[in-house]
């Protein structure tokens, strides 16, 4: 396999570019998008690369269409992705729910910018966390990854595809304009060394006829591929295991939705990823994620030098959420600070997790600039 960029060595590239290259290395061969700052560079890279690797890159009429095309492509067996920012992400909520309900693997990248509405197109924010988790209507669960560096943007894109395929679910890669536009040195591995997961497909016509039956007991039904004789029927209406619409039977709705939620919530251990810095003996914990966590790491190092026993929990996945882990941390520390580029989103999750065992305080930042280490130090000190 020939790639239109160098592999097996490091490169100096933007976060958006890293996401595009990682997607192609993960096996993504369908991209549909609509121009939007600060995500357009992902699309432009895909437009450059996809025709060369016999993939498709297509500009749709809007973001409603982009995500719809991606879902359609996924049902032909393709790994597919779209990328956008807040205003487009809002438009995608409808079909994100369709992807959840029909259990369609796909990756949606949201390169966050200041909002609400058109907001601050060129500046970074972390204001879409709750939207990524809960933005589409109805009960559901979803997976949301939050890279803090260009290397993480690369690595987490590959992971996003693997999680999407493994759990037959949409995955949101929630990054921001800062990570999207910054350039860093990124290690692009040898393609043969990349772990790639592919969705389970039905082992028989009979399995294909029931695309929503938990054949393997892991909550993840094998997914038919259109055009291979399964004659699957897929609908966003509440459906039985056959895919037949059953819109008034409470028990069918309950068993479908509980399975869709459980396949993610019961696999938290596999999905959740985090890193800690100086947290083991800390008196004060900082919880942060994405771009804000970089300043938090620096802040912890400076606070330690000053003799303050601070530690950091850096979340790489903000949903599913490990409430129990937060409670265990809350039992050990006096206080937890949540540093995020919004007016309090993950803060509420942490507060729920802390369960009153420690005070939880927010270190917010809005306006477009990332927290400085000083912003955090002054609150903690």
């Amino acid at each position, binding site marked *: 396999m020939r790639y239109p960029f160098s592999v097996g060595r*490091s490169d*100096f590239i933007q976060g958006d570019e890293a996401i595009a290259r990682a997607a192609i290395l993960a096996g993504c061969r369908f991209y549909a998008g609509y121009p939007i700052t600060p995500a357009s560079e992902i699309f432009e890279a895909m437009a450059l690369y996809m025709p060369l690797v016999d993939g498709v890159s297509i500009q749709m009429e809007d973001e409603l269409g982009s995500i719809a095309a991606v879902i359609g492509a996924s049902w032909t067996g393709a790994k597919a992705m779209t990328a956008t920012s807040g205003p487009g992400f809002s438009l995608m909520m409808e079909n994100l729910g369709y992807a959840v309900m029909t259990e369609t693997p796909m990756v949606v990248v949201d390169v966050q910018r200041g909002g609400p509405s058109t907001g601050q197109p060129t500046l970074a924010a972390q204001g879409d966390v709750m939207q990524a988790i809960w933005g589409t209507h109805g009960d559901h669960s979803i997976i949301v990854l939050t890279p803090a560096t260009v290397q993480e943007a690369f690595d987490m894109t590959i992971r996003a595809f693997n999680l999407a395929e493994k759990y037959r679910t949409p995955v949101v890669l929630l990054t921001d304009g800062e990570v999207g*536009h*910054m*350039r*860093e040195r990124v290690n692009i591995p040898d393609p043969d060394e990349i772990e790639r997961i592919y969705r389970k497909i039905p082992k028989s016509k009979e399995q294909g006829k029931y695309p929503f039956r938990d054949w393997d007991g892991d909550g993840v039904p094998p997914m038919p591929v259109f055009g291979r004789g399964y004659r699957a029927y897929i609908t966003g209406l509440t459906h039985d295991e056959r895919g037949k619409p059953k819109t008034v039977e409470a028990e069918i709705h309950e068993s479908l939705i509980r399975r869709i939620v459980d396949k993610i919530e019961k696999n938290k251990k596999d999905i959740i990823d985090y890193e800690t810095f100086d947290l083991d003996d800390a008196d004060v914990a900082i919880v942060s994620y994405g771009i804000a966590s970089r*300043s938090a790491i620096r802040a912890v190092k400076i606070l330690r030098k000053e003799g303050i026993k601070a530690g950091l929990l850096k979340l790489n996945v903000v949903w599913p959420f490990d409430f129990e882990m937060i409670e265990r941390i809350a039992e050990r520390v006096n206080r937890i600070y949540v540093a995020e580029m919004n007016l309090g989103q993950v803060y509420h999750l942490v507060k729920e997790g802390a369960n009153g065992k420690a005070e939880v305080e927010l270190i917010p930042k809005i306006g477009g*600039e990332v927290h*400085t280490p000083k912003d955090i130090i002054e609150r903690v000190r």
Partner: protein
Amino acid sequence: MTQIRIAGFGGQGVILAGVILGEAAAIEGLNVLQTQDYGSQSRGGHSVADVIISREPLYDVMVTKADVLMAMSQIGYNGAIDSLREGGTLIIDTDLVKSDREFIGAPFTRLAEEKVGLALTVNMVALGYLVAKTGIVKKESVEEAIRRRVPRGTEEINLKAFRIGYEEGAK
């Protein structure tokens, strides 16, 4: 860790200079981050490229106190001078920037016009000067970065401009 800020106006190639400096550091295996800030205008507004280079893991995402500030225009200088740390190195285009702080520099734009023969290469002239004065990365790494990053067919003139700036800085 070294924080470098390059400030000028849109169209001077400030960001490309920052990208090439960053690429050179990456070629040397250093940890490096490059960001940019520009007005909504493509031409004529302020334009800033930040480069942070470090042997340690790099967490910082912005230039907080620049060790090196290179101002290629007055508008860039005015917006960035407060970010230069005390005792930091100030490099200016001596024809275009007036400063009341201690500085080094050369008439980069004039050198690009007269010695290179193309005013557009001012960014490479200035970058050559910066690299010679600071030694932050090796000359050869920058030359490799230029070959990778400039539009095909313009490698030689950009390399020439970089070397002219470098010689000026090495004087």
